[in-house]
């Protein structure tokens, strides 16, 4: 019974995520759109959680909802469009957005259909946080270090860009 509820619950989450995604792109108000995007990200975190990937779900909330969305909203507030309830978008913009979305959808569908989804053998395929850490430090240590250097460079670059010139 509980498993049945859980299985049906995934569909509810999926529908919610899709609805929020449409809302985030269709709402005329920038701020509402950004909040709908936060709802999408939360729903995706919920999907991860229901699939047993707790760590991924928490990182998703921490990084995307907690940090990235806050930055997005900060940027929206700095655009000075706060009082206007409607942000006008031109007809060409809409057409371009529609076309690029359609192309992206087709590409993703192609990847999804052509991938052979291997079912993990054994009942419990979920890697623990410890396994993730060991994997990151042993098997994937090179990409990990490259990412570290990249982020460090970004940090220094941001500091350099934000530094005030001494007069």
């Amino acid at each position, binding site marked *: *019974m*509980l498993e049945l509820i859980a299985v049906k619950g995934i569909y509810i989450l999926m529908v919610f995520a899709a609805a929020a995604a449409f809302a985030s792109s269709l709402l005329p108000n920038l*701020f*509402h759109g950004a*909040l709908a995007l*936060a709802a999408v990200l*939360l729903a995706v975190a919920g999907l991860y959680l229901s699939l047993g990937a*707790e*760590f991924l779900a*928490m*990182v998703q*909330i*921490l990084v995307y*909802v*907690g*940090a990235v*969305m*806050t930055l997005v*909203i*900060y940027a929206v*507030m700095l655009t000075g469009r*706060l009082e206007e309830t409607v942000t006008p978008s031109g007809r060409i913009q809409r057409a371009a957005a529609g076309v690029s979305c359609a192309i992206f959808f087709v590409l993703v569908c192609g990847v999804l259909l052509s991938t052979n989804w291997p079912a993990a053998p054994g009942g419990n395929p979920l890697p*623990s*946080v*410890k396994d993730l850490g060991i994997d990151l430090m042993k098997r994937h240590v090179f990409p990990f270090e490259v990412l570290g250097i990249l982020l460090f460079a970004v940090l220094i670059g941001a500091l350099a860009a934000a530094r005030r010139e001494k007069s």
Partner: protein
Amino acid sequence: METLFIQIKTLLVNAAALVLPPWGVTLSSMIISALAILGLGPLIMMYLTLMERKVLARMQNRIGPNRAGPWGLLQPLADGIKMLTKEDIRPSAADPLLYFLAPILIAVPALMVFAVIPFGKGMTAADLNVGVLYFVALSSTTTLVIFMASWGSRNKYSVLGGMRSVSQMISYEVTLVISVVPILMAAGSLSTQTIVESQSGRWYAATPWGLLSCMIFFICGLAECNRSPFDLPEAESEIVAGYHTEYSGMRFALFYMAEFMNVFSICALTVTLFLGGWQGPLLPSWLWFLIKTYLLIFIVFWFRGTLPRLRADHLMGLAWKFLLPLAVMNIPAAAMSHFLSEPFSTAVPLAILMVSVAVLSFFNKGYAAEKRVYHFTD
């Protein structure tokens, strides 16, 4: 006494098992834990308000609330009734949905983090194996809700408070997360229950790196829940009440509730991570946990009674120029203590940390804020 609450729950679940099918029993076990937490949150908040008023009053040589009930014990109830019966005001220009949703949504993460706090031996409502991460992730969503409230009420003081709150929370959250890393390394787990159990021999706060980590975590936690001396987002002498300027009645009470519940959960998590959690001699585990937590909460109120509010640039300077580098240096120090044997495992981290504190203080010493020019609005 030790297993009082667990026995009560077992009793209730067994009673449910008489009438319900197996899945119903599982469900009712979850619901009982959830209801306990849902009831606990508001109860804690109500009496924290009274405690804060009493403690502050004593520090200011007053008596504090003493009219409603003995020692003012019914004061929170009276306040609650007053809040509920106040007129519900909504600014005509406010964004209806966001203005309505924000006070509800802000209480959700504040209540949800209670799920991973180990209130006693075997008394964690949901012992997730990513417990600490769950706490950090949920409390980071509060920023968004504060933004909703501040933007939704269409008031310039609200927006100012919201902006301040967000910049403050982003800055301190980074340091907060990094300051927990040494503990996670030492315990080898993200589960709050395991972290408490790994402190059976020695509290983490009794090691040099643990003590530093504890202080950084506590300071950043105070900043995260906008408590004094980090209460710039709701500085009443500058921007009325910050992001909840336009809220009154029960909506305001929900913001207030979230703030007090956050204070409780930050103190509870500090106890869990650094001060041995529910471990202690003689008394039952949950009592030890509450004693330690309320001691920390007393310190929070003490701060409010003692320290003046920080200035915005000092606030940022403290986070980025002092606490963050110190928290980063704390990670190698903790690693050293893990790999060295006894006399060195304390001495080497202590030396590293003392040198880094000295270096950081030296580089921060010359820092004087530039003179600011204030403009009147025209």
